[in-house]
C-alpha cells in the first residue's frame, strides 16, 4: 500500500486548497449560500477548469479518467472549504451512473458537458415514505408507445433545483423493475420545488404528473435501475466520507485556534488539560474518519458485493459518528460563541450533521452492514 499522493494528486490538492482558501472564506461562503441562488456558476466553471468535474469522466468523453483515490484527494479539500456546489451529486454520483450504466448516446450527450461544467445532474430517488431506502420507491413508469409516462413524487433530491436534468427512479408498470430515467428539468408535467436544508444547501421535491420521456431516457435496461442507483450512491458515500474528513480536519484547526486565542482565568483555554484532551478525542475521531474514507475508496474497486457494502456502509457509520463528536465538541469548546450564527464553527457543525444523514443515516447503514456481514 502507498498512501502518498502522486505528483498530480498533490498538485491538484494544493491548487484546490489555494482555491478554497481564497474563494470560500467565511464571508464569501455566507454571501453565496444566502444569496438565494442554488449555486454559483462562476465557481462551477472554476471547478471544471481545475479538473474536478471531469475527474472520473473517461478520457474519450473529455475527462481525466481518474479512479477513487483521486476522488478522495479532491473531496478532502472541498470538505475543508465547505464548498457549496453540487459536486457530489453531479460530478460523482450521476457521472458514475452514466459512465457505468449509460448508453453510448447518453454518455456522449452528457459526460463531456458534465466534465466541462456546462451541465449539472442530480439524483431523485427518495420519496416521502421511503426513508433512506432507494428500493422502496413507488413512483410509476407506464409504457406508452416507444417511451414512458412518469407519475409520482420524489423528495429531498440533493441539489435537485440546480440540475439541468435528474436521474429519477420509477417502478415500471407490469414488472418489478425499478428503472432509472434521465429526465430534463423543463419537460412538461414536472414541477420542482426547492428549499434550504439544515446545512444551508438546497434540496428539491419533484412532482411528476404524466411526464413523457422517450425510451432512450432509461439508464441501461429497465431492470438495472436499482443497481445503477446503488452504484451512484456508493460513489457518493465515498466522496462524502472524504469531504467529512476534510471538514473535521478544518474544524479541529478552527477550534484549536479559538482555544489558543481565548483567555479565561488568566490563561489561554488551550492550556486547560480537560480541553486539550477533548481536542485529542476529536483528533482521534477525525483520523478514524479519514481512515474510513480510504476504506470507502477501496470499497469502490471491490468486486465482491458483500465486501463492498461492508466497506462503504462501515465507512459511512464510522464517519457519521466521528462527525457528530467533532461537530458537537467544536461547538461546546467555542462556548456561547459556538451557539451563534456569527462564526464558521456553526457552518461546519451543521454541514457535518447533514453529512451524518445524507445517503443514508447510521442505522440504515448498520442494517446494510449486518446483512452483508451475514452473507
Amino acid at each position, binding site marked *: 500500500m502507498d498512501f502518498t499522493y502522486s505528483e498530480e494528486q498533490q498538485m491538484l490538492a494544493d491548487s484546490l486548497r489555494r482555491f478554497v482558501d481564497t474563494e470560500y472564506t467565511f464571508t464569501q461562503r455566507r454571501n453565496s449560500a444566502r444569496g438565494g441562488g442554488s449555486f454559483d456558476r462562476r465557481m462551477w466553471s472554476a471547478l471544471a477548469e481545475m479538473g474536478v468535474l471531469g475527474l472520473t469522466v473517461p478520457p474519450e468523453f473529455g475527462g481525466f479518467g481518474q479512479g477513487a483515490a483521486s476522488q478522495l484527494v479532491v473531496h478532502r479539500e472541498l470538505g475543508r472549504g465547505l464548498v457549496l456546489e453540487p459536486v457530489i451529486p453531479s460530478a460523482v454520483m450521476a457521472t458514475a451512473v452514466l459512465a457505468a450504466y449509460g448508453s453510448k448516446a447518453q454518455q456522449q450527450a452528457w459526460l463531456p458537458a458534465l466534465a466541462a461544467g456546462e451541465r449539472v445532474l442530480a439524483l431523485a430517488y*427518495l420519496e*416521502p*415514505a*421511503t*426513508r*433512506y*431506502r432507494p428500493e*422502496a420507491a413507488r413512483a410509476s413508469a407506464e409504457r406508452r408507445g416507444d417511451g414512458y409516462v412518469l407519475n409520482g*413524487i420524489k*423528495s*429531498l433530491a440533493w441539489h435537485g433545483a440546480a440540475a439541468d436534468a435528474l436521474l429519477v427512479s420509477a417502478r415500471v408498470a407490469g414488472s418489478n423493475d425499478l428503472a432509472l430515467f434521465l429526465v430534463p428539468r423543463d419537460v412538461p408535467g414536472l414541477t420542482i*420545488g426547492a*428549499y*434550504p*436544508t*439544515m446545512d444551508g444547501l438546497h*434540496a428539491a*421535491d419533484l412532482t411528476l404528473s404524466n411526464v413523457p420521456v422517450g425510451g432512450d431516457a432509461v439508464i441501461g435496461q429497465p431492470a438495472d435501475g436499482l443497481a445503477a442507483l446503488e452504484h451512484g450512491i456508493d460513489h457518493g458515500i465515498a466522496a462524502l466520507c472524504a469531504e467529512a474528513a476534510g471538514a473535521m480536519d478544518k474544524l479541529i484547526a478552527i477550534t484549536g485556534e479559538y482555544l489558543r486565542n481565548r*483567555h*479565561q*482565568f*488568566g490563561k489561554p483555554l488551550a492550556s486547560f488539560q*480537560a*480541553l486539550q484532551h477533548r481536542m485529542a478525542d476529536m483528533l482521534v475521531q477525525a483520523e478514524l474518519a479519514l481512515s474510513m474514507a480510504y476504506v470507502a475508496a477501496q470499497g469502490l474497486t471491490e468486486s465482491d458485493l458483500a465486501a463492498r457494502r461492508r466497506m462503504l456502509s462501515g465507512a459511512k457509520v464510522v464517519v457519521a459518528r466521528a462527525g457528530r463528536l467533532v461537530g*458537537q465538541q467544536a*461547538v*461546546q469548546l467555542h*462556548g*456561547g460563541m*459556538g*451557539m*451563534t*450564527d*456569527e462564526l464558521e464553527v*456553526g457552518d461546519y*457543525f*451543521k454541514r457535518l*450533521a*447533514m453529512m451524518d*444523514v445524507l445517503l443514508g*443515516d447510521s*442505522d440504515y447503514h*448498520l*442494517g446494510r452492514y449486518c446483512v452483508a456481514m451475514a452473507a
Partner: protein
Amino acid sequence: MDLRFTAAEQGFREEVRAFAQDRLPADIRDKVLGHRRLGKDDYVRWHRILHAHGWGAPAWPKQFGGTGWTAMQRLIFEIETFRAGAPRLLSFGLTMIAPVLMKYGSPEQQARFLPRIPGMEDFWCQGYSEPGSGSDLASLKTRAERRGDRYIVNGQKIWTTMAQYADWIFCLVRTDPDARQQEGISMLLIDMKSPGITVRPIVTLDGSHDVNETWFENVAVPVANLVGEENRGWTYAKYLLGHERTGIAGIGHCHRELRQLKHYASQATDGAGRPMSEDVRMRDKIARLEMDLMALEMLLLRAITQDGGRGPGPEASIIKIRGSELQQDIAMLQMEVAGPHAWPFAPQWLDAGSVQPVSGPDWAAPAAATYFDMRKTTIYGGATEVQKNIIAKMILGF
C-alpha cells in the same frame, strides 16, 4: 424510606394536571408541542393565568406571595405543566433575582420589585457574562463608578436572554477595580429604559433571536438600586447561580420530549411500511433514553428532598450535567426518527402559522433546529466543564 409518592402528592399532581388541561391556551400549547417559536406575549399570558390562580411564583415562600410549595410539589408542577404543553416559567425574575432580593435586598427593594414579578408586570433579564468573561465570570469588567447618589455604568454584557423584551436587568458590575477579582463586584438593578443602554440581537444556530449583546454607556443608576452591600456582589451571584442550576435540569422538558419522541416514532415509517417504533435499533435507543430519564428523575428527587427539602448543594451540578445531556440526546433522536424529513430547514418555518413547502410531517420540520438549539444546554448556566470543576472541588474535595 418510603419510595412512593404520598396521597397528597398524588392529589396535587391531579390538581395541576386538571388545571393545565383546562387553562392553558390552545395556541400556546400548539406552539410548544409543535416546537414553534414563542413570543413575549405567550410567556406573559401563561404567567398571568398562573398568577391569577395564585400559582405565579411556585418557588417562593408564602410571605412574599408565593405558593409555599415543597420542592416535591414544584417538581410535580413542572412535570405536569410541561406535559400539557405549557411554556417554561421564565427564570430571570422568579428564580434568579427574586431569591437574591428575598435574602439580600432592602425592604424597599423587596416591596418595589417582588410583587411585580409573578404577574410579569416587570420583565427581567440577566447581565452576567461579558465577551471576555464567560466561564471565568469573576473577571468581568463592566465598570460602575459612584458619583453622589448614582452609579455611572460603562461596559458590555453578552447572552442577555430576552433583553429585547426586558424592563429591568440585574447586573454584575465592578465597583472596586483594585480589589481581588471576586471582591470588587457589586450587583445593580438597572432600568432597561435608562439612557445609554443599547441592545443588539445575536442570532443563534437555529436562526432564532433570544440572546443579545447589551451595551452600557454612562448609564446612571440610583444607589438605591444596589443589592445588599457594595463589593459583595459575588456572594449574591453565586447564591443566584445555585438556584439556576437545579432549574435547568429540564426534567419536565425531558418527560415531555421523550413522550413526543415516542409519538414521532409511531408516526414515522422505516421505508418498508413499519413504524419506526417497531424498528429494533430505534427502539433500543428510545428505551435507553427512558432509562436515563428514570435515573435523572430519581437523582433529582434524592437531591431536592435532602436536608428537609432545602434543596441541593453542589449535587445540583450532577443534575445540571445529566439533565442538559439528556435534553440534547432526546432532541438528537427526534431528528433521527424524522429521518430525511428533518433535512429541510428554514428558520421562518419556526414561526407559528408559517407554511412549509415540503412534503414531510409538520412535527419533523423543526427537528434540526431543535437539535441545533439544544446544544446550548451544556453551555449555559455554567458549562459542563464548570460543573465538573465544581464536582471535583466541592464533592470530591480535590
